[in-house]
């Protein structure tokens, strides 16, 4: 695939992008993203001008040691945060300047999160956890249940729908989280260390699930610091000190 020209050399990159032939396929376009945190007196640059693009159907790992800025980058990609400067396009929409509520809408519609700590509501059943994103776009209850059951069966938890997280194993919990990420047919699945809290066998099982999702056409962005997990992806973006260190294709 033809790589998007580096942004530093293209001051008017967004215009060029819109006229680009690959426009329809580009799902993420980041241009010169900066994130600066005000810590008392000092300013800390967590990201220093990061630019990259991700095409629909890609399986990308973002790798870096802790403190490299990969969590900050993940928050930006996941629309949980906005950059201090720079532009971030998600599915042809400039999201770096949206308000909180608009970001919430994007998170609901475009992004499926899978977290290291699963982040399920402890008192809700698997079914209810999975249907949660649908509540926030006002889907009627019957449709919510139908779709939640469907995705839960897809991750092979058809017989665990009415269990609470505490009644499920780690791997099962993460599969509930994956089902929840899938339910709104998001543009990207954004996984933050999805195997970090799992033993290696269960981790493998989850990574196989991601492989399956990739093969069925989902775009996956995986944030990790583990090489063998990152190696599952087809492209690895290495982050170091808030900059892209290396962008390599693998596999």
């Amino acid at each position, binding site marked *: 695939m033809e790589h998007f020209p580096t942004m530093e050399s293209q001051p008017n990159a967004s215009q060029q992008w819109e006229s680009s032939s690959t426009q329809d396929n580009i799902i993420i376009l980041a241009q010169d993203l900066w994130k600066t945190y005000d810590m008392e007196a000092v300013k800390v640059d967590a990201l220093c001008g990061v630019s990259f693009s991700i095409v629909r159907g890609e399986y990308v790992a973002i790798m870096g040691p802790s403190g490299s800025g990969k969590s900050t980058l993940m*928050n930006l990609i*996941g629309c*949980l*945060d906005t950059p201090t400067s720079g532009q971030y396009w998600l599915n042809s929409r400039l999201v770096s300047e949206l308000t*909180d*509520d*608009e970001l*919430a*809408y994007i*998170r*609901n*519609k475009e992004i499926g*999160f899978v*977290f290291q*700590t699963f*982040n*399920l*509501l*402890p*008192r809700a059943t698997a079914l209810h956890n999975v249907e*949660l*994103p649908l*509540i*926030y*776009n*006002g*889907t*009627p*209850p019957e449709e919510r249940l139908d779709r939640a059951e469907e995705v839960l069966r897809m991750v092979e938890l058809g017989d665990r729908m009415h269990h609470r997280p505490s009644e499920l194993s780690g791997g099962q919990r993460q599969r509930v989280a994956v089902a*929840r990420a899938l339910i*709104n047919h998001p543009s990207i699945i954004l996984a933050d260390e999805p195997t970090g809290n799992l033993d290696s066998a269960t981790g493998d099982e989850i990574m196989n699930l991601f492989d399956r999702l990739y093969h069925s056409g989902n775009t996956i962005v995986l944030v990790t610091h583990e090489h063998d997990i990152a190696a599952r992806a087809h492209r690895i973006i290495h982050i170091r000190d808030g900059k892209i260190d290396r962008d390599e294709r693998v596999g």
Partner: protein
Amino acid sequence: MHRRHGELFSAWVTAREAFWIAIEALTSHKLRSFLTLLGVVIATTTLIVVMSVINGMNLYIADHVANLGTNTFILSQYKWAQGYQAWLKARQRNRPIRMEDYRYLKEYLTGYKAMGATASDSRFTAKYGGQSLYDVSLAGVTPSMIDIGQQKVDYGRYITESDYVHGAPVCFIGQDLVNKFFPNVDPIGKEVRVGGRSFRVVGVAEKIGTTFGQSQDGFVLIPLTSYQRLFMARPRLDISVQAWNSAQMLPLEDEVRSLMRVRRHLHYNEDDTFGINASETIMSLWKRLTSSIFAVTIGVVAVFMVVGGIVIMNIMLASVTDRTHEIGIRKSLGARRRDILTQFIIESAVMAGVGGLIGVLLAMLISMIVQRFFTSSVPLSAIIVGLGLSAFVGLFFGIYPASKAAKLDPIEALRAEV
């Protein structure tokens, strides 16, 4: 930017979700919820119990106390239920109503249905066969009072025209005397001693019952002429005038007033030297009294509600802190500020509403108990006000915690300890 469904429908879906979250949160911490709701429960209970008792007493007063008789007003020396100052003034000017006034009205007043006079005195002792009944009220009446007064004939007869004309030593007695003196005997024809005089029982009244725990059946009625002959030659009278219908009441009152003013030669700018009293007079005094009771209640309830609201706010703040992680999860899944705001405000309102509901049930229970020995009647308006007020308190005091929750940064919230 379009959501798939209408904004209103979306809000309804979130609100319904929030309702079940609230119910779940309440039932999963029962003791905490109970303590939290105590203030609202007490406030609602107090409000409804007071409203019920006042309402019950209103009905009661209208029924028992203010019931002078249908479409009847009473001419007496003083106007009832006036302020203390007015009464002091009236005491110097007003003159008693006498037999002459009664005869005068009989002669000149026209168009009334019935008119009667009563001279009464209380704290007599009635005696029969070695037994005594204290605190009996004795009244001299005209025979026409049977149509006007509260008493009805159970058996025997009332004071007749013949008794009246002859000043006969006969009496018409209340049920208390029957119970005391004649439990198993026919009282008719027996001689009862009241105030040192003997009276032959000619009739017994129907039971009236009690007013504020005071029996209304301890009375002895004798002919007014006998009263004059045996006790007091020139008694102070109350003259009862009954109109044909309620529309005639005011014109008839006016007529009595002008006749009395003419008789007493009152100048047009002088006040009446007598009082004309109708049921409304008593009711208006009563309403004045209850409105001040009610004002105090409103104050007390307001204090309870504010305290209850603050407790709820406190618990909601704690709940927001406890559930920061949950809020982070919800936000990461696309909950907007207003979704989180709605969730917590509804939770707070539902919590207070449940408190209100408990308060209503408790108040109904108390009202049922009160009714056994006093009077109480729960008005529907009290229930509506109680529930509405408590839900409003929940809404109001939920705003601050909810806005705190809504403003949480999703990243910070996700990072919070579970």
